[in-house]
């Protein structure tokens, strides 16, 4: 990163050939910055591990450090444990989100479209929204016959609000003229929904789902401390009980990585359904 290559690059750019400078900058942005971020995170983790290991009181937790965690992670990936633990969690997340969307989007559309629905639902929704999803745990356990059902319910309860509110907000932002024009062109209610409203708010729905994935993923782990014997939350709880701190740290990494990729998928979908300034 001395001054020489930079000035060289600039000359190349001036000569009108391939723009190495721009290429270099974007490559640096795209790869270099994330690498720095990951590096800082690992360094802090390593420092934390070192501090734990060098303190006699916490020595027994030393496996929490990056090195043992990653070697353990390789092992668990190779023997399939990572997949075994992730698959049920992903299924629960998927089902919970599905319910959140199936209920949240239609209700959100109604809230966005009709002032009366909005006013009637305001107090109940704001009230319910403020209740921690985990506070529903005892009720969920009572109401559902299976642990799985209870967990999916908790995820759905957490995930529904961002989907619902984002949908409603999207609907309210629709240009009233879009409704007028569509009506004028002969749209009936269903066509209005399918051709105008849903495409208009696609990106809002997925922005809501992105937030929902975040909270659902957070709720998942404590929810899986409930009864079940599968999933990432269970794996973490189990690792703690058996004092396998390297496994525990490895599963934390798995949770982070999967969350990161889920978020990435949502961002892709938001872009795909966005109609703002497309070229």
């Amino acid at each position, binding site marked *: 990163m001395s001054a020489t290559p930079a000035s060289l690059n600039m000359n190349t750019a001036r000569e009108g050939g391939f723009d190495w400078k721009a290429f270099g900058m974007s490559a640096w942005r795209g790869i270099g910055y994330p690498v720095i971020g990951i590096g800082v995170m690992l360094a802090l983790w390593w420092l934390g591990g070192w501090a734990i290991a060098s303190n006699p009181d916490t020595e027994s937790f030393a496996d929490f450090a990056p090195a043992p965690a990653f070697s353990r992670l390789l092992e668990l990936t190779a023997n399939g444990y990572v997949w075994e633990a992730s698959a049920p969690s992903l299924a629960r997340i998927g089902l919970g989100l599905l319910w959140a969307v199936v209920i949240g989007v239609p209700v959100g559309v109604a809230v966005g479209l009709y002032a009366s629905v909005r006013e009637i639902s305001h107090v109940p929704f704001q009230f319910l929204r403020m209740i921690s999803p985990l506070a529903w745990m005892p009720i969920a356990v009572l109401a559902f016959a299976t642990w799985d059902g209870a967990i999916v319910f908790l995820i759905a309860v957490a995930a529904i609000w961002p989907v619902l509110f984002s949908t409603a907000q999207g609907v309210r932002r629709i*240009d009233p*003229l*879009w409704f*007028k*024009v*569509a*009506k*004028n*062109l*002969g*749209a*009936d209610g269903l*066509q209005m929904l399918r*051709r*105008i409203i849903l*495409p*208009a708010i*696609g990106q809002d729905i997925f922005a809501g789902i992105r937030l929902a994935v975040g909270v659902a993923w957070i709720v998942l782990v404590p929810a899986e401390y409930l009864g079940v014997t599968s999933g990432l939350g269970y794996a973490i709880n189990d690792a703690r009980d058996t004092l396998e701190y390297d496994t525990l740290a490895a599963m934390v990494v798995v949770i982070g990585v999967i969350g990161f990729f889920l978020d990435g998928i949502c961002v892709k979908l938001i872009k795909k359904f966005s*109609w*703002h*300034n*497309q*070229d």
Partner: protein
Amino acid sequence: MSANISIDFITHTFKGQTDPTLNNIELKIPAGERVALIGRSGCGKSTLLHMLAGLLIPTEGCVRIHGHQVTRPSAKWNMMFQKPSLYPWMNVRQNIELGLTFAGQKNPEKIDYLLDLVGLSEKAEEHVQSLSGGQQQRVALARSLATSPEVLLLDEPFSALDAFTRATLQDEVARITGQEDLTMVIVTHDIDEAVAMADRVLIMSANPGEIVGEEQVDLPFPRDRSRAEFSRAREQLMTKFDSLVGDVKPAEIRQTGQSKALDDSKQQAA
């Protein structure tokens, strides 16, 4: 095919208001006529046009098209607004097709014809957001025509465009309405626009909105704005407009910020 419009004693009072916005408006528009509606800002032009489109139901009286009472919007009487309000998730062709899509029809030849009519054949597959304001308004026009309406209603459709594009589109719409045999009602702030496009210009007063006068424009299409007849027709209309609704006191204008566009066009004419 065009349709005759009959406005039968419309009076309209908006909810929560005591004075009517429109008062006892009676009007017959024969099939195929091009009518311009001018009046000061807030006099109720858009309100009346919305009623013709079936987007608003008058509190008293009714609109009949072809003798049938208008009770709801229909693709047979289509309205175009000041903003093109195209749907950005559809390309140009899909936007134009929309009315047919709603009706469960497909007619690619017709869409090709309309694309050609508004000069956008090359842009058919493009995103509407990449078009200029004038091109977008052309798409909106083609979209309004796709369902073969009998009546075309225009609410200041060109006021957001630059002067050249505006003049071009005024001529095009006048040509197309003749060619497609449509009854046209255009609301405008622009006296030039009224003279360029209409067979008959109606003058509306405010508080309450009433049609207080009209002026025939007997000039052949396409209308050449540089000809003496055009200037004369404009002058005549302006004089009539001033005598009927022009005596707004200066204080009133300042208070409400009304009639700017008309004052502007007056200055241009002077």
